């Protein structure tokens, strides 16, 4: 395989929990991202799945250099991502762009579509000379399947799916190499969601983009992603090719997650294995991920937990019984854990 374009090692992001108004003191940390490593190769899609509060959006924000990391390293095309500053940082931003979840709040309501899509060129004037911008913006609209005549319209004049297309066009404007997609279709209706997913697939083929695709919908991730990383409470608990994760999930959390997804086929009713977790994931604020369970973080909800799980955090590695890395002492393919 080619060299990774984005390579992340042991990334950590902790948010301090403070108390007091005048004398603010730190009483603990929310460990939103706690030791994440991943590689993204040119032209591929890496899915990051997990439930609310698992740190997947924080991961995106750190990698976009929107918030500073607490620890760990990341390289983009071999260069240290977190050391970039000034002109080098600005130049790098052309290469890595983001599409956000909510197409209603991520577009400025006072700007026309032309202004929104023209702004990247204001910041990076070397990409398109001034006289050429209108044409470039109209091209972008066409590429994402919108009417180029609508350049003077405001975001509120578009539907949710169309707004998400505007968000995608904005990310595409500077011809990036990597696009981070943070839940890009979860606010959309099913029929519109499918249109946007197909668009993302087409754009990837046309422009050779790499996607870091963050989502909670396992069906969407299976459809779009080459490789998948499953996150739980700030860490990756299992990673592998889409095939490995969806057919041979070996971490009990991934297995429970897959078993919880309802399948649109009534003839399978009662025939699928039901693994039900108890309770919710510990919350990202308050008592919990500030103070995650000792040993394996999943053990409090895990049907397979043993005493060793409370003592030793399991490493993310390939074990004798599995063909891809999972962070579980008892990782095994799904057919061995039928419990009916």
């Amino acid at each position, binding site marked *: 395989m080619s060299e990774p374009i984005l390579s992340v090692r042991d990334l950590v992001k902790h948010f301090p929990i403070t108390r007091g108004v005048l004398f603010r003191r730190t009483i603990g940390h929310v460990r939103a991202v706690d030791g994440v490593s991943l590689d993204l190769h040119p032209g591929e899609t890496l899915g990051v799945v997990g439930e609310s509060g698992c740190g997947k959006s924080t991961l995106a924000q750190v990698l976009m250099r929107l918030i500073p990391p607490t620890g760990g390293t990341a390289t983009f095309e071999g260069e240290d991502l977190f050391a970039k500053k000034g002109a080098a940082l600005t130049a790098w931003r052309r290469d890595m762009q983001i599409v956000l979840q909510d197409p209603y709040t991520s577009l400025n309501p006072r700007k026309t579509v032309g202004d929104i899509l023209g702004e990247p060129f204001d910041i990076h004037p070397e990409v398109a000379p001034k006289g050429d911008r209108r044409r470039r913006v109209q091209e972008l609209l066409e590429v994402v399947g919108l009417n180029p005549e609508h350049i003077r319209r405001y975001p509120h004049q578009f*539907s949710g799916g169309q707004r998400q297309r505007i968000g995608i066009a904005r990310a595409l404007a500077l011809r990036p190499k990597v696009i981070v997609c943070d839940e890009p279709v979860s606010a959309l209706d099913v029929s519109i969601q499918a249109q946007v*997913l197909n668009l993302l697939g087409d754009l990837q083929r046309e422009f050779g983009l790499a996607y870091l695709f963050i989502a909670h919908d396992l069906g969407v991730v299976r459809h779009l992603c080459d490789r998948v990383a499953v996150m739980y409470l700030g860490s990756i608990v299992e990673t592998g090719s889409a095939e490995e994760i969806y057919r041979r999930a070996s971490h009990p959390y991934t297995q429970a997650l897959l078993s919880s997804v309802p399948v649109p086929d009534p003839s399978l009713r009662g025939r699928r294995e039901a693994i039900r977790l108890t309770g919710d994931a510990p919350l990202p604020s308050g008592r919990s991920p500030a103070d995650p369970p000792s040993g394996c973080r999943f053990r409090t909800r895990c049907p397979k937990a043993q005493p060793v799980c409370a003592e030793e955090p399991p490493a993310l590695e390939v074990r004798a019984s599995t063909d891809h890395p999972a962070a579980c002492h008892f990782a095994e393919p799904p057919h061995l854990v039928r419990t009916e």
Partner: protein
Amino acid sequence: MAALLEVEDLRVEFGRGPETASVLNGVGYHVDEGETLAVLGESGSGKSVTAQTVMGILDAPPGRIIGGSVRFRGEELLGADPERRRLLRGESMAMIFQDALSALNPVYTVGFQIAEQFRFRRGMSRKDATARAVEMLDQVRIPNAKQRVKEYPHQFSGGMRQRAMIAMSLALDPELLIADEPTTALDVTVQAQIMDLLDELRRERGMGLVLITHDLGVVAEVADRIAVMYAGRIVEHTDAETLYARPGHPYTRGLMDSVPRVDDPGHAAGAPLRPIPGLPPSLAAIPNGCPFHPRCAYAQDVCVDDVPPLRELGDGHQAACHFAERFVAEGTDRPTTHEVVSG
């Protein structure tokens, strides 16, 4: 089995003048005792407005009921005395909502909000009512209910709040529960817990359940019958097995082809989805003829001219399409996935 709820030809408009939105254009369905009817549709299809009209909580104005009938155990509710309707709410029919945090009152404890019903409807003392509230929280499997009853909604997690709302809605033992997107805001592992709980409670109590959702997966797992809504109309209505195996309306078919499935190898490896082109119509300007025709790949001249009525196709399968028989005969061509799941 006796029909619990019958809705017939319900018509609701919002606003006035040229901007008038026809939100419901003749909606009809029925729910029997102990069964689950799923109302499936995308945003703006009218599924929640139908439920609000049934419950008598439609905001009017701007909403305006211009026709139709809603009967509970044969009793007409539209135009009934508001006091009578108030008594039915909670006792006979109850509703739970998508966003439990905004449906619960933030300044009262969860226990108080459940106990309130026992105090005012059953005349119980504060103490007895609180004891019943603890029982209710127990029934919806909230651990440590005795302590939890004293907590406020913000101290509950998302799944717990939804459980508390279910406890509240079932306090007075209603015969019909309307659940409006009860799991949309929840994570998938918690969604599975809540759906299991709702199904269990329905079975235990022999309660009728109307499940409003946009999620084809959830519907497939729990519904007995399904009504598919589009632009304020029911466009297809049948049992769950038939709907997924032999949909009679191209919109239903389109929805199924739009969903990337977690278990479907056919969709993996970048095979494109087959989405429905275009957008749902504006309810202030619903197209002539079949409201779906501008997005329909099979539309003919007749679809532009004539509104297809919801027709009986046999065995209780109804669809509002001029060519429904043809689609039913074709069935779905998706590859079977049984080997994958049971293998």
